[in-house]
């Protein structure tokens, strides 16, 4: 056996036991109690160390002594608290004499806590000892003689209640009483229990002797498990040995501070957009139909403005202020195109309807407000806006979702530049080299494009939609240059990045899932 490898693997408790035995003349056997005392260990610590050392064959059992010990049963503890049935029967008989009453066995059984078998056993014993007599009519009378058993029982209950005792520490008479009143097979209702306690004594094995010798030679170098400030302060770490760890075990888990993987994903998109020169815009959750739809040239009879497509606000139902001069201008454009060169939709625009409050249904509402607020020209803007869709919730439809949208304004903006911008998004946001541009329809852009890209991991997917804002949108809001409107659909990329297959899980309440998602992008 490689003694030094054995020593490296020893626990401090094992070392204490080994060195305790090794410090004594060879062949010395110590029992558990002696060892615990000498090694300054708790009985539980000692028992652990002894079992480990036995398993490693570094110590051996020299002798094994069996000692009967006496302890109180639950019944015994009750007797200690109240009194033994014997004592209670005797007391009752004495009391009867004093008051001149007649005491029968049924009378005794009527007394609380005494059951028939207790009573008959007690009466039998007392009668045998001559402390009571059974007279005619089954009455019990005391004889005036004492009962040695009652006295002995009281003493024993007192002594053993304090702690268990070895059987052999009692006198012959006491031992007899213990035996009479001990739990036996078929008679569990007794105050005493006699158990056999095994005491072992241990000696060092040959290997153990070798290990102990070496440990004692290292002597001064006490092993410690932890480097402490005290050890560093006084330099005493130099005299210590540091127990080697089993480092192949898995570590305990800790809770970390971490961003939500979906937010982290949106953060990277945000950073990309800022790096491409886009300025952030922010909007409102509760918006007027005017900014959400009218300003975007969606006619008031448009199917997407139906009660089944947009969430309307209960109270207040309408905004208090009309956004002039924009409202009047937009109304005219809807009706007849006004000065935009358009025919308009040819219907009568409802100003009141325009003030109806809705939960923002599209991020483009944020862009519309920006157009009306004297944006920079040239200018690039984006927003990551929470929008609400009136839809049955399922694996691909959520009621709340993020829309990443924006605009680009400039004198020289045109359709080809729109395609160039989409190319840039494809490369920067989806790391895609291949793109396809498909004709698309949005109520507020013309021409309109759908951007499909070949994502390195996901294959062909739709990444977004874009177009040039219709003049019917830009002119009434005071913008005279062409404007690109774009939006990115990132949910699918985010779902793959997060390893979820259901859009609802992007907003999951499963903390374990959120904590364990790596969110690599």
């Amino acid at each position, binding site marked *: 056996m490689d003694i030094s490898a054995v020593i490296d693997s020893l626990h401090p408790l094992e070392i204490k036991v080994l060195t305790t035995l090794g410090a004594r003349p060879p062949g010395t056997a110590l029992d558990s109690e002696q060892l615990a005392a000498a090694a300054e260990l708790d009985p539980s610590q000692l028992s652990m160390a002894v079992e480990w050392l036995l398993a490693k064959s570094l110590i051996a059992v020299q002798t094994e002594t069996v000692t009967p010990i006496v302890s109180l049963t639950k019944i015994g503890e009750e007797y200690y608290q109240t009194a033994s049935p014997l004592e209670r029967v005797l007391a009752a008989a004495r009391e009867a004499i004093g008051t001149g009453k007649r005491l029968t066995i049924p009378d005794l059984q009527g007394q609380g806590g005494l059951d028939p078998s207790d009573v008959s056993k007690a009466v039998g014993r007392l009668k045998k000892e001559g402390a009571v007599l059974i007279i005619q009519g089954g009455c019990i009378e005391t004889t005036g003689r004492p009962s040695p058993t009652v006295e002995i029982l009281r003493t024993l209950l007192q002594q053993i209640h304090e702690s268990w005792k070895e059987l052999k520490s009692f006198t012959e008479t006491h031992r007899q009483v213990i035996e009479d009143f001990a739990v036996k097979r078929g008679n569990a209702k007794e105050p005493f229990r006699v158990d056999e306690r095994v005491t072992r004594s241990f000696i060092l094995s040959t290997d153990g002797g070798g290990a102990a010798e070496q440990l004692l030679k290292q002597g001064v170098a006490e092993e410690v498990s932890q480097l402490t400030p005290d050890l560093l302060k006084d330099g005493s770490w130099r005299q210590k040995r540091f127990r080697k760890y089993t480092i192949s075990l898995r570590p305990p888990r800790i*809770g970390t501070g971490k961003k939500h993987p979906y937010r982290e994903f949106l953060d990277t998109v945000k950073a990309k957009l800022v790096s491409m*020169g886009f300025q952030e815009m922010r909007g409102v959750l*509760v918006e007027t139909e005017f900014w959400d739809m009218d300003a975007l040239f969606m006619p008031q009879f448009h199917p997407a403005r139906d009660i089944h497509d947009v969430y309307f606000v209960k109270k207040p139902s309408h905004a208090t202020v009309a956004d002039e001069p924009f409202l009047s201008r937009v109304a005219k454009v809807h009706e007849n*195109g006004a000065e935009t060169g358009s025919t308009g939709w040819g219907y009568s625009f409802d100003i009141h309807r325009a003030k109806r409050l809705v939960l923002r249904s599209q991020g483009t509402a944020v862009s519309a407000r920006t157009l009306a607020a004297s944006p920079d020209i040239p200018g690039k803007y984006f927003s990551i806006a929470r929008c609400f869709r*009136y839809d049955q*919730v399922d694996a691909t439809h959520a009621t709340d979702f993020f829309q990443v949208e924006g605009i680009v304004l400039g004198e020289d903006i045109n359709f*080809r530049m729109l395609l160039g911008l989409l190319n840039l998004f494809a490369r920067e946001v989806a790391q895609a080299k291949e793109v396809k541009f498909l*004709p698309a329809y949005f109520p507020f852009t013309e021409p309109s494009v759908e951007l499909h890209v070949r994502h390195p991991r996901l294959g062909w997917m739709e990444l977004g939609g874009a177009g040039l804002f219709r*003049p019917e949108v830009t002119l009434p809001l005071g913008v005279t240059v062409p404007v690109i409107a774009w939006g990115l659909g990132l949910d699918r990329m985010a779902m793959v990045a997060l390893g979820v297959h259901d859009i609802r899980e992007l907003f999951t309440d499963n903390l374990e899932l959120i904590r364990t998602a790596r969110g690599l992008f």
Partner: protein
Amino acid sequence: MPTIIIFQDDLESLLTTDRGADRGITTAQLEEWLMLVKGELKGNNPETGELRIELQDSNRPDLWCCEGIARQIRIKQQGRLKPYSFFAEKLKSPHHLIVKPDMEQVRPYVAACTAKGYRVTEKGLAQLIQTQEKLADIFGRKRKTVSIGIYQLQNIIFPVTYELVKPDDVRFTPLGMETTMTLSEILMVHPKGLEYGPILAGNSLLPILRDAKDQPLSFPPIINSREIGEVRVGDEEFFVEVTGTDLSMVILSLNIFAANLADRGATIDPVEIHYPTDTMPGRLIKTPQDFGKPKTIQIKAIEQALGQGLSEAVVKQALESYGYSVSAEKGSVAVKLPPYRHDLMHTMDVVEDVAISRGYAEFTPVMPTQFTVGGLSVIEQMSDRSRELMVGLGFQEIISNILGSPDHYARRMRLEGTEWGRMVEVDNVMSLSFSCLRQWMLPSLLRIEAASSRAFYPHRLFEAGDVAIPDGTHELGSRTETVLGALIAHATTHFSEIHSCLDVLFYYLSKEYSLEPVQHSSFLEGRAGRVLVSGKPIGVIGEVHPEVLERWQIAMPVVALDVNLSQLATLGKGVSSSS
């Protein structure tokens, strides 16, 4: 918008040109062609040949059918639209339809034509019905503005009249029924009467189409007569009418239907409609009718929008092969839409058709050139900084829905009827679970905590996001503000643990704050505070009330904070640096 079902062999036979049939179209070829109609192939059953196609353009109802899709592709292949003869102005109409007075109060307009010589097949009939339904349902807004009827021509004696009658004066057997019913019975009993009856609500007289022998054709926009208005496979002669509230939509729908039947081989004859008073095109009008007007467009405008030089000839070729009629002049083109379209509002609509006709792939992308400086809003910067700090403090970020339930946002928080419990509520509630907007962050955090008792403790959660705070003084009735919320849950957590986090947060945000005791039903009394910055309350902090925890079924103590970042950003002098 609409998704339609067509059959591949039907499409192929409609694509048959002078050059012969186009059989066995591949999916790739089909997807290429669908770009011309803004269509997306959603499903493809090779066994039945069934194709599910979604058409995006809500202003092109002519494309919501197999005939329309085929037509757009065919024009591209042939280079121009073969004109439909029945739009010719000189053509005589063999049939007449009389509109009686007072129709304008109920459903003013009607247009009609006849079609002969197309023996309708099973698939052809399915397409006719689908087109009828999509046009009436989506374009006609569930029959409100447009509805369509098709009849067996041979059973009708002309002239047909369109008039108003008393609901109990006329009876006929409607489609789907065995016995005759009066109009009021149809409205009360027939499934279509129940579904579309509300369109006619409030009218004491109802519209009816009857022939010269007083046989009812239909009760528009509700239901056709079973005797005359039921078309079966094998029928060859049809009468088609469209009624509605907008004359141009009514005529456009009829034009589409007439073109579709003509494409399938029918001969279309116009019907003369006699109105009692003047309409926009006149008192006597012949339908179908080409009501498009030429529009002159500068080539320069097209070039500027597309960013590409294009000659008159190129523009002419592109638009003609997309169905327009075009005459080119120097520097401009005069264009007119085909009669089945009515969606030219602005020059930009023509610009897009030029691009689609040429194919988007023909346009080389150009990188945007304008130099702009990117950046984040003050609120977003504040939010990002707070999020970084919370992560550093060992908190896990979460994201929640903003739209939730009053049960979560008010009842479980013990806030019903309190100032803190007011919320923006939805009027057209679909599900109570999504019927109001959160007004602070703590309920969102507790939702996760309640679902996560099995995740190992401690739990330290935060979210930064938008909330809607009702505000009667605001023009929108509410303010949208960005809020940071955080909670800690474990067996021995207490106020000072979350207070320490608040302290660190504000230290690094360089904001001075103070706490004052507050009575807030969501927190234990005496263990809750209002966070004040420059004397203004901008948040709350405290030990969450055990009854709140019980209502969420959370069996762990929770402490929490909620800070309004939007308001914080505008308040509080930065704490002067010690250096």
